[in-house]
């Protein structure tokens, strides 16, 4: 190591200790007496310079600068998000938007659950129902959900009748019939694997003529519809389970048929009672809607009865017809 390099190292070491307050000029000189004459004026110069350069920005400037930086950081962060969204595929942006809406709207969905036709949250209620239907995996559970939704439509019809809103009564009746049709198909194991939202409940904007017609049963029957033998051919390991599933399905069908029979009696009676107080001008349309819902119940009960003609369902069906 040359003398110059060694001196530079020693000077830096002393400066470091001086700046850190770990040593005085005198202590440094004592440590390196051979370089003391050369070191001393340089260290004194730096002490002077350092003192002069210790410029204090002041608390006011610090606070002002801190505030400005925060504002700038917020602006930069917003722009960063936008730029990230700009180069993402459109589907990713859509997913983010949907997630944001879902995360932000949990309370909205809850509030929408009890909304009625004409409310701004009513479309949210219908959309939430469609999602629930789509996310329900078994046909039996979905059929039971349809029965619950039918109950809701009846409540909505009653609400609209009380207010003399014939158009809302008709739409609720259309949705009710869609639920009933889907319920009977699902109970018989003929429903689609994933019902569409339109099948379950027509959108708020649809007119009566636009309500989709009932779908025919799938051209190719499902393995479940073909019975245990077909399941056994495809999956030998499940042969023993098939009869048990069939028994459970049968029990669910009977339960639903009984429920439908009760609805077919109580719902039209309730609606007709309400219709008596409806405005004269709205009454014809309301009555047509009630008749349409009665027809929907009958169709559903006929379909169920033709497959599972249990004594209870037969009784309920004749009871429903008898009350018309």
């Amino acid at each position, binding site marked *: 190591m040359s003398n110059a390099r060694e*001196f*530079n190292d020693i000077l830096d070491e002393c400066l470091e200790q001086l*700046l850190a307050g770990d040593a005085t000029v005198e202590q440094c000189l004592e440590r390196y007496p051979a370089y003391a004459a050369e070191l001393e004026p340089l260290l004194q*110069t730096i002490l002077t*310079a350092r003192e*002069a350069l210790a410029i204090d*920005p002041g608390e006011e400037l610090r606070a002002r600068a801190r505030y400005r930086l*925060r504002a700038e*950081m917020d602006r930069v962060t917003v722009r960063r998000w936008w730029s990230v969204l700009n180069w993402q595929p459109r589907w990713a942006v859509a997913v983010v938007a949907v997630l944001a809406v879902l995360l932000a709207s949990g309370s909205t969905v809850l509030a929408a659950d009890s909304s009625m036709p004409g409310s701004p949250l009513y479309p949210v209620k219908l959309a939430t129902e469609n999602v629930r239907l789509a996310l329900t995996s078994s046909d039996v559970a979905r059929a039971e959900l349809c029965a619950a939704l039918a109950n809701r439509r009846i409540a909505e019809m009653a609400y609209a009748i009380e207010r003399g809103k014939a158009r809302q009564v008709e739409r609720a009746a259309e949705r009710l019939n869609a639920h009933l049709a889907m319920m009977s198909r699902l109970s018989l194991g003929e429903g689609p694997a994933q019902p569409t939202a339109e099948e379950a409940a027509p959108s708020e904007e649809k007119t009566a003529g636009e309500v989709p017609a009932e779908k025919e049963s799938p051209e190719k029957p499902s393995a479940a519809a073909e019975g245990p033998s077909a399941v056994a051919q495809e999956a030998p390991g499940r042969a023993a389970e098939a009869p048990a599933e069939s028994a459970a399905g049968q029990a669910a069908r009977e339960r639903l048929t009984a429920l439908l029979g009760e609805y077919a009696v109580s719902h039209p009676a309730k609606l007709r009672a309400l219709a008596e107080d409806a405005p004269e001008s709205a009454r014809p349309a309301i009555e047509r809607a009630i008749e349409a819902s009665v027809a929907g119940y009958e169709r559903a009960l006929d379909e169920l009865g033709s497959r599972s003609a249990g004594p209870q369902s037969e009784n309920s069906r004749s009871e429903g017809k008898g009350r018309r």
Partner: protein
Amino acid sequence: MAVIVTGSGGYLVQDEQALVRRTQDGDKDAFAELYEAYFDRVYRYVVVRIGNRAEAEDMTQQVFVKAYKSIPSFKWKGAPFSAWLFRIAHNLVVDFHRKESRRPTVPLEESLVASEDDLQKTVERQLDVERVMQAARRLTAAQREVISLRFAGGLAIAEVARAMGRSEGAVKALQHSAIASLRRILLGGENGVER
């Protein structure tokens, strides 16, 4: 590399690397901690380099905003955050001087010590600051940079080397010549300037 630095007012910043990482993950509070740790030092460095307090405030702000914008691409490849930050400050100072060469500058003494309260102290300090700043202006650009980074910015020799893109040995040699020149100039010798 975990670095512990002491910022303004004895503010302690633990694990600088973690703060940078958190900032990169979108944590604005983490960057605020880095800001608190470095604000005074960057400000001093800028003041010394450009000699104008009002301009220094704006430029210091720009340094941190630029750092915040660029921090997602910052990688720890041996260079500490401080060196990277002061490199940003250096580039802004260079830009400033390029623009300033086309217009008159505000006198140093008017802007630099305006906030001092005590008149006697102000006068003395003004003289000291003015002398040192005048002397620093006569140094070469490289010497001035070393003095600014090392004694106004408070960087260690390794950090100065990183910020300037030179070896530690070269920076130590530059430091030696810069202090020697500064001394000669302060003692009144124009001849002390080493070009």
